């Protein structure tokens, strides 16, 4: 990956980080301020635990994985990572905690947070979430994250596709909204939501044996479309 001062051409592949299609892509947890706080606060613990610089991109990546992993494994779509293997690699290749970050690393940090903001804008979702972080790491292609995901050969489009497919399979677990709740979430009148449902633009379901309508959380995005910033100037 570009400009990583810790890269060594003879470094062995991170064998436990593997790429495979999974049938079930569990939803990433809701993000927002809790996610940013969790990752940020976690970076200090990563620095202490692994002896790497707690502001580095590697610390950011490991902290993110710790936040989003279950039982020591991070899994989303075609990406499955063993957290212990990633942390071991961070200890071996990361910027040591007692050394200053180089200019390249500072620039990578700037680019990373810009990419997170860009992913949020593209998605149209209100809060920054784990998917935004994951795609930003992939697009940045820097440090440990760039190396690991590069070795897996996974592209951002595959992750985005898995996000769309995975959300649709969460029928038993996914939050359901009444038309009123959907209207509040979207910031529109409930009659607008009902009109969308009648026109087929917004998919809805009835509870068995009842007239009550419910909208899946994953279907709410169908009434959002990304805005080109050029339109707003």
């Amino acid at each position: 990956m570009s400009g990583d001062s810790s890269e060594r051409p003879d470094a062995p592949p991170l064998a436990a980080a593997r790429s495979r299609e999974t049938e079930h892509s569990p939803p990433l947890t809701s993000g927002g301020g809790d996610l940013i706080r969790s990752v940020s606060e976690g970076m200090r613990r990563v620095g202490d635990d692994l002896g790497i610089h707690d502001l580095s991109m590697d610390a950011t990546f490991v902290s993110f994985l710790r936040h989003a992993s279950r039982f020591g494994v991070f899994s989303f779509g075609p990406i499955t990572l063993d957290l212990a293997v990633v942390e071991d690699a961070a200890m071996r290749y990361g910027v040591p905690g007692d050394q200053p970050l180089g200019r390249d690393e500072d620039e990578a940090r700037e680019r990373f947070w810009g990419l997170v903001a860009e992913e949020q804008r593209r998605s149209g979702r209100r809060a920054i979430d784990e998917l935004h972080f994951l795609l930003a790491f992939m697009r940045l292609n820097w440090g440990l994250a760039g190396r690991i995901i590069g070795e897996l050969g996974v592209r951002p489009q595959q992750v985005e596709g898995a996000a769309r497919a995975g959300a649709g399979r969460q029928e038993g677990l996914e939050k359901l909204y009444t038309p009123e709740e959907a209207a509040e979430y979207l910031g529109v009148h409930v009659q607008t939501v009902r009109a969308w449902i009648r026109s087929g633009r917004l998919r809805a379901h009835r509870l068995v044996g009842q007239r009550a309508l419910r909208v899946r959380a994953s279907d709410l995005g169908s009434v959002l479309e990304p805005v080109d910033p050029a339109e707003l100037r």
Partner: protein
Amino acid sequence: MPIFMIDRDFVDHDSAAVESAALRALACSYRFDDLRWIRSFADEERHTITCVYEAASEEDLREHARLAMIPCGDVRAVTEIGPEMFEGRETEGAVEPTTSLIHVPSTTRDGEL
């Protein structure tokens, strides 16, 4: 907790650069126990961003700016004033007066005090 106003010079007012800086500022704010970003205002004409923070000290704010890699110019302690002070809205820590604020002196029948 004291409130501070910070002036930051931003040469690059590109929205992407500003958003990246804002996110770095937010992320780094969580590294401090008593530092909270309240609001920022961008002045595109003057190429400055004025930020309002709650913090324990100016030193914390300068360290925060260093960690977040954002500019940090003038830092000054300020007092917050808002319409809720006059409109009887609930504010945190507000104390209701127990007596009238207007004292009417008693007078004699002749009108003397």
